[in-house]
């Protein structure tokens, strides 16, 4: 990644486990994340001006340990404190908890936002147990923009938390991925089968059945999202139609076509749509849909330009 984009990324850290901006920012809240590889551009791909300042990376689907996380926090700290954006996974959370304790011993103020946007992974009454998936991208963007705008740690954290609360996601898979160390597919699925609601590591979903036309699959996804948080006339949203790795972008646009029609019919306005591979699961075939419901602040922060190979400004 650094070889391809040397103006954007640099590798750093005692064990070369952090990716960071080429130059440290000045006088702003730091924003960092961390997580396993296998989801490019999540996590480390979103390092860039107006996004993450640094990111700790682990092995495929494995949390980095606390040490690179602490290095990322130290790099990002300019005296204004550091916000850590954490996907809701046991290892990531525990290691970031320890990182923040360590940072506080070094007199660096820290805050955490846990992203848990996957509606298929737990019901609304247990929303705090949901996994973090493609909604991470929105939270990175909003936090990065808030920090760039000069908000302090509390305000940056509040904006990121608001973005996280406003995101709902659900995925559909047609084939599994294979974790290199395991050497075999994480789950078995027939050629003519799909699974709704699986996680970005191949965690089991909520429904499995025969392959259906794209409009029907999109309707199922949107129905799940709508049941969780109904949208109506006059609502403004940003949507991310995300490919999981092995699905042609052409098909993602077919999903978007159906989604656009449904939103139009419901009187919901789409702002800053994104269609492409933003949060992948290696060679898994499938897609996810993330909807972030906007208010004035989120819409403004979303529109702030960011500089990163994986983010397109509109």
């Amino acid at each position: 990644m650094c070889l391809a984009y040397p103006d954007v990324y640099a590798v750093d850290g005692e064990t070369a486990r952090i990716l960071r901006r080429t130059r440290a920012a000045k006088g702003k809240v730091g924003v960092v994340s961390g997580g396993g590889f296998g989801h490019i551009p999540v996590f480390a791909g979103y390092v860039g001006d107006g996004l993450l300042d640094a990111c700790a990376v682990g092995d495929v689907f494995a949390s980095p340990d606390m040490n690179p996380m602490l290095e990322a926090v130290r790099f990002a700290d300019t005296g204004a404190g550091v916000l850590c954006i954490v996907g809701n996974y046991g290892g990531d959370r525990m290691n970031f908890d320890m990182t923040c304790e360590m940072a506080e011993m070094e007199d660096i103020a820290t805050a955490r936002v846990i992203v848990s946007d996957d509606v298929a992974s737990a019901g609304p009454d247990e929303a705090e147990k949901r996994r973090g998936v493609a909604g991470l991208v929105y939270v990175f963007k909003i936090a990065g923009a808030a920090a760039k705008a000069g908000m302090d740690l509390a305000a940056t954290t509040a904006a990121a938390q608001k973005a996280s609360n406003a995101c709902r996601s659900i995925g559909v898979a047609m084939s599994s991925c294979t974790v290199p160390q395991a050497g075999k597919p994480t789950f078995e699925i027939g050629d003519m089968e799909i699974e709704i609601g699986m996680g970005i590591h191949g965690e089991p979903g909520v429904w499995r059945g025969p392959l259906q036309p794209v409009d029907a699959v999109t309707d199922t996804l949107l129905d799940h999202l709508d049941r969780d948080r109904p949208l109506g006339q006059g609502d403004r949203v940003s949507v991310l139609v995300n490919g999981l790795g092995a699905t042609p972008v052409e098909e993602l646009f077919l999903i978007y076509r159906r989604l656009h029609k449904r939103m139009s019919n419901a009187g919901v306005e789409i702002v800053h749509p994104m269609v492409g591979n933003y949060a992948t699961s290696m060679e898994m075939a499938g897609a996810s849909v993330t909807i972030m419901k906007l208010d004035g602040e989120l819409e403004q922060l979303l529109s702030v330009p960011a500089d990163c190979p994986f983010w397109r400004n509109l």
Partner: protein
Amino acid sequence: MALTTETLRRGIARVQSKIDTIGPEMNELDGRLGDGDLGVTLINGFHNMAKVADTLPDDVGMALFGCAKAMTQVSGSSFGTLMATALMAAGKQAKGESDVEWSRFPELLASAQEAMILRGGASLGDKTLLDSTDAVIAATREQNTPNGLQEAALKAASDALDAFRDKPNRIGRARIFGDRTIGMDDPGMVAFLRLIQCFDDG
């Protein structure tokens, strides 16, 4: 006479010199109930702590944090994470101090225990390391010398092991074995006792 970073260094060196014989026993014990990596965690952890010992700062709190960092560098296992958690919690209590009175040992251990309960989710009585630390905290309250502490801790950890041997494990992978764990020693409790025994001869 107090706990300093120098004392800590000597302690690490002491454990390091014995850990290669303790490790295999722990792997064996853990292999019956868990994933069998407890010994590896201890061996790698203490060797890495020894590696960084000379660079530890005089601030005992920061030195304990340095030990925690060294632990997490070599182990992502649950026991390694809990040890790091314990060291950090104790470190927080000692931040900014270059010598800590021995009489504060139970207080530091109590913070460590509380942090391990929060992070690991086990409760007292589940037949884990916590039941040993709890017994040691109670037994060392009146002690203010290293030898007194060691003797009281040794007896308490040993008694706790005896008291829990015939109870079932209630948490972690060992819980799956249920009543079959009756009569077996919990590997974490044994590990804690072995660490205390490293200081048998003063």
